[in-house]
Structure formats: C-alpha cells, structure tokens
C-alpha cells in the first residue's frame, strides 16, 4: 500500500513537471517579446506581454521584475511596488531584482514624501 502511494506520487510529480516546464517556456516567450518591444519604447505592449507571462507562470520572478520596471516607467508606482515585492518573495536572493527595487524605492520615497504643515 505504502509503495503504491510512493509510486503514485512519483507519477504525479512526473506528470506535473512537463506541464510546469511548458508554462515556463510559454511565459518565457512572452517575457522575451516584452523585452524586445520595451527596448523599442513600446512600454504598454511590454506590460501586456509581462502580465500574460505572470498569468501563465505566477512563479516567474523575472517576469514580475520586468513588469515592475514597466509600471515604474508608466508612473504606476503602487503597482510597481507590488510587482517588485512579489518578485522578491519568489527570489529573495536575486541581487538584480534587489538592486532594481532599491532604485525604485528611492524614487517612490521621494514621490510620496509630503511635509505638510
């Protein structure tokens, strides 16, 4: 009985793994296309592509990082913060995401700082 459970679990894992790999592969295509259009200045299209990538594969930290950058560029700072934080939750040790987030925070703090009387 115990052996049967292990075998079943193993088979399930094997079945899920290619599906995950497929999702990441599809999401990666969206991310790459997003980068290409962002480099041409088409940021709205890039946002669409990176949003699609995160829908396809919600655990794709790079897509969330890129999405955060695009939101920043569009001045949607609350959305950018959310995307950066999700990306860092997924990959807390990613130095490049951390660096982007630190730069974003500098601007965000400046934008939200209000010294009212």
């Amino acid at each position, binding site marked *: 009985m115990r052996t049967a459970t292990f075998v079943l679990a193993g088979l399930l894992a094997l079945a899920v793994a290619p599906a995950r790999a497929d999702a990441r592969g599809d999401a990666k295509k969206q991310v790459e296309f997003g*980068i290409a259009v962002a480099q041409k200045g088409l940021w709205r299209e890039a946002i669409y592509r990176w949003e699609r990538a995160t829908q396809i594969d919600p655990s794709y930290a*790079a897509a969330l*990082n890129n999405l955060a*950058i695009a939101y920043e*560029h569009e*001045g949607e700072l609350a959305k950018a913060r959310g995307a950066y934080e999700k990306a860092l939750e997924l990959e807390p040790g990613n130095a*490049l995401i951390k660096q982007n987030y630190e730069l974003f925070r500098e601007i965000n703090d400046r934008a939200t700082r209000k*010294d009212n*009387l």
Partner: protein
Amino acid sequence: MTARLAKTICSLAAVALTTACGSYSEIAIETPIRPTLDVSGFQRVFVAGFVSGGSEDVDGNLETTRLLRSQLRTKSALRVIDADSLPLQDVATEGRASDQTPPAVVKDEKDLDAYSNLFANVEYWKKIGEEYQQPLIVTGTVLFIPHQRNSIVQREDEVYDSFGRRRVVPVRTYQERKGFVLSPKFIFIDGRTGTVMHSTTAREEILYNANQATPALSSYFELMDRVIPSFLSTLSSQKIKGTRILLQ
C-alpha cells in the same frame, strides 16, 4: 580524479555564469512623478518673497525669489508674475506690540519661528491674492548660516618603500571644516482664499577644508541646486531618469 572533478565543476560554473550574464539587459527608464500639489486651479504663480537671515554675504530673500522665479518660468506651466517681492519682515512687525515684534535681524531658526503668524494671516494673503489676480503664492523662510565642524577626513597620501616603489595609502586625519547650512521652508498659499495649501522644508549643508575660500554666494547656489528638484516636484510633474535590469 579530484582534479578532474574540480575542473568539471569550474567549467560548469563558468557556463552557468555566462548563461546568467546573457539573461539580463539594462534599459533606460523615465519615471514620471506627479506633483504633490494640485495647481490646476491656478494660471499664475507669485513668488512673494521670503523672510531670510543668517549670513550677511547673501541676501536670502532676493536670491531665492529670483532663483525660484527663473526656475518656474522654464519648468512649470504657470505664468510667473514679475513684481517686487513683498516687504514681509515689515509686514510682520506692523500693528504689533513691541514685546511681540519679531527680531528685525534673523540669526537662527528660533528668530524665524517668530514670523510664523505672518504666513497664517489669511486676510493679508487674501488681499495680496486679489491684488495679483488670485495666483498661487509662494513664500516662506530661508536661513543660510555659516557652519563649522571638526571631523575625521580621509585623504590619500603617496608613500615610497625602500625599493622606491610608489604606493597610495588612505590617511584619516582630524580636520577643521567650514561651510554653510541652508534651511529653506517653502509655503504655498492659495491666493483665492489666503490659506496655506502646503509647506515643505529642507536642510542641506556643505563643508570645505578650512583653508579653502569659497564665496558664500557659490555655496548658496550649490545648496539651492539640491533643493530645487523637490521644490519643483511640488508644483509640476517631473521625470526621473534611471536604468533598470530586465531579466529573462
């Protein structure tokens, strides 16, 4: 065997590194920052002048008024009113008992506090607003004071060893430094109602070696240069340029 294993690990690591390096690209972005204050109801701005004090070498009122007007002319959509700045220090003393009169010469922040009633005088600012067709009024205080501090400074010294080889070594020394502190407070008043809409403060300091003679006016402009972006972002949207890393 171990050497072969180490070699394989090294080459795998190099491949991984190369792959990782190829999977990101730098991109330039411009982040738009919305203004803190909604000034859509105004067509004009009147930089009315400042209560200023501190160094006698710089007229904080005159220089700040002139600088802000010129910045607003080029970097804001509001039309800048060209008029003499208001004699705020005189206005503050008018009709006051002698024991309540704010000091004529402002030396420190405590002296400036005595002028706070002036900016809360709704009737006065409403009258000014009517006179200049209800603009957005910019006023406030500017304190520019000489400053001196002894601190540890790191400098690099050249040393030569017994073979005549040159080396540069960091040396930490205790040094007297002189400079200035600029503390402006910008107050934004609605010329239609005479009420304060917003106020913002800043503090910037600059220090030089004690033997370096830098004119006070140069220091003032250097410090104002740091304050101006935040002042402008109160009134008009700004774009902040930067670079970020896109990942694959």
